[in-house]
């Protein structure tokens, strides 16, 4: 395979390159370059301004000893675990909406609205809903004689409060993906099973879920990544006001932000980001490993 043969066989190489150039450049400038410079910084002590000094693994050893880092990872893990409950919820809702006939579009729009809403606006609105004294949630709870809590001011509840919003925010996009998956399931399978006497529940668990499993898997992967990267809710709901629950409610990305942009420790912040990247990679690899046992590629 000499080069002359190759170019003779592929006259469009130049054009091809031209067409991929915008995407490639974007990828290099916006992903590859920042990634490499973050990796480099994680081995350096980077003051806010002025020259960085190489410190080897210092940032990583300090990070391993830092209780705040472990707490943040714990918070992120808890948040992710709860938000994952939104996946089965989305599967059930997607199946129900599919049955809804003409009202389908209305439901889809309703569930999709949070996706197109600015997270900042969502955070502001939920902060009012969660307000311990004047919030809507506690007001509604009081109808049932339930004493509410300070949902986003009490560190015991903040992560759960965020996760509820996280599920709600992610639902719309999950429903779209799962809805598309549902439409790809041949109607004939349902008809055949109905003839064999399968009821709705049975069809759901033995046809819908297995045939939808590739979409469910995809949604799960996206949900885990998005959940591990949660930042905006905590920023809007806790930082913009002087909230004392913030100290115990930090997620890993929030901690990264705080180290790198509030406390001028960019090297340390970069190390946190790299560790997060590794955690996300492991979590994703693990899911790909596990999917073999439950995802069904018809």
């Amino acid at each position, binding site marked *: 395979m000499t080069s002359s043969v190759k170019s003779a066989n592929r006259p469009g190489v130049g054009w091809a390159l031209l067409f991929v150039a915008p995407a490639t450049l974007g990828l290099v400038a916006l992903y590859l370059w920042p990634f490499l410079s973050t990796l480099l910084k994680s081995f350096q002590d980077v*003051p806010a*301004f*002025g020259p960085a000094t190489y410190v080897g693994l210092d940032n990583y050893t300090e990070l391993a000893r830092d209780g705040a880092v472990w707490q943040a990872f714990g918070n992120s893990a808890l948040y992710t675990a709860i938000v994952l409950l939104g996946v089965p919820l989305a599967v059930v809702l997607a199946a129900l909406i599919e049955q809804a006939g003409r009202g389908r579009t209305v439901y889809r729009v309703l569930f999709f609205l949070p996706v197109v809403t600015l997270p900042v606006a969502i955070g502001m609105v939920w902060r009012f809903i969660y307000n311990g004294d004047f919030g809507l949630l506690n007001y509604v709870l009081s109808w049932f004689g339930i004493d509410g809590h300070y949902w*986003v*001011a009490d560190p015991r509840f903040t992560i759960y409060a965020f996760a509820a919003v996280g599920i709600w925010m992610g639902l719309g996009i999950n429903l779209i993906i799962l809805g598309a998956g549902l439409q790809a399931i041949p109607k004939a399978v349902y008809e055949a099973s109905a003839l064999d006497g399968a009821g709705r529940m049975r069809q759901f668990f033995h046809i819908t879920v297995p045939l939808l499993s590739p979409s469910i898997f995809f949604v799960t992967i996206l949900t885990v990544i998005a959940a591990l990267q949660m930042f905006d809710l905590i920023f809007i709901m806790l930082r913009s*006001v002087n909230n004392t*629950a913030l100290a115990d409610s930090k997620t890993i990305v929030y901690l990264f932000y705080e180290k790198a942009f509030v*406390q*001028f*420790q960019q090297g340390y912040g970069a190390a946190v980001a790299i560790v997060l990247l590794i955690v996300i990679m492991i979590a994703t690899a693990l899911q790909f490993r596990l999917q073999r046992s439950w995802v069904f590629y018809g």
Partner: protein
Amino acid sequence: MRHTWTAALAVAATLLTACSGGGETPGAANPAEKVTLTYANWSEDQAPAMEQIAAEFQKENPNITVKVQTLPWPEYWSTLQVGAAGGTAPDAFWMLADHFREYAKGGALIDLSDTVKTAGIDMTAYPKAVSDSYTYEGRIFALPKDFDTNGIWYNKALFDAAGVSYPDDTWGWQQVQDAAKKLTDKAKGVWGIAAPIDAQGGYYNTILQAGGSIIKPDGTASDFAGPEAVAGLKFWTDLQEAGSSPTLKQLSDTEAVSMFESQKVAMYFSGAYWALRFHNNADLKGKVDVAPLPQGVKRATVTSGIGNAGYAGSKHPEELKKFLAFLGGTKAAEIQAATGTVLPAYKGTQQPWLDAMPEFKLQVFLDAVDYSVPLPVAGNTAEWQGLAAQYLAPAWEGAKPVEEAAEEYQTAVDQVLAKQ
């Protein structure tokens, strides 16, 4: 394959150089050249006055256009830091004492020492506590814009309703505690005072009033656990314990100043900078006034002020210095005072500020200069200040003795200071 990669790299390289080819050429020092400077701040309340100052400057310097940028407070410092590190920072911007050292040390700020000399700026016209905090290794990097001291903002209507006499300069700590208790009416959802974990408006002042020092004079260690500091912290935890303040959780959900504005708390220790906001709030008309902070072992308040600084990487350093000198001068101060925006730092320009809001005894803040102490800064101030809520909250919530929480906070602060 090799060819594909080489070609791709060639394309990439061409495009990249093409992209970076423009811009970057520093403006020649041609005085008639049209120049645009950006001026960043974080206050919607003050933005109109900043626009007015910029317009006034443009009148004198028709070739320079000043664009005022108002950023939200939670994003201000990260935006500024990224901009300064990446070469895209605004030309002029507001600075605070606790962030100043990192910027000055990192060479991000334009040196104004020579400008001060050539423009004949009298540094003694500013409160010394403020101008000192913008000097680094003997060089001046920012000119004081305004300053603030603290007082007791109080709601006269709530005092009248509870039959408690208004605070005045005879008040000591005990009077505040007693009044706060009497003013509290839980059935009505009214508390005597707001006692959040607030350093500048709160416990720094009481620690100093008790005779404490917060940061030891050489800047290498803190003093939060000494008997004076503990007394200063107890002032606030006592208020919490007596139920005279909304709880920490309530104050996290709804900020102290919002509680004060919605007339849920009768007293709020804070700075002069709220005057305009309270003045503009129609619900508070005729109900609010201000008194000096109470006396502990002695009188004390922390003071700080915003400084106007410039970016060392500005493309128009000469015009920028001119603008900063203007910002530090009497005209800019007078505009701030006359609009009631803030208490300007320039000596002798404060009267219009007092006159702009005659319903408040604003002289209180000016008188406080005599016993004011600079806001403590040492090491990475943003880092150790950020730890306060975490360590002090258990004391505020009564879950831990104040002595113990203070001791732990002191240890954590000293660890940060030891890193320098």
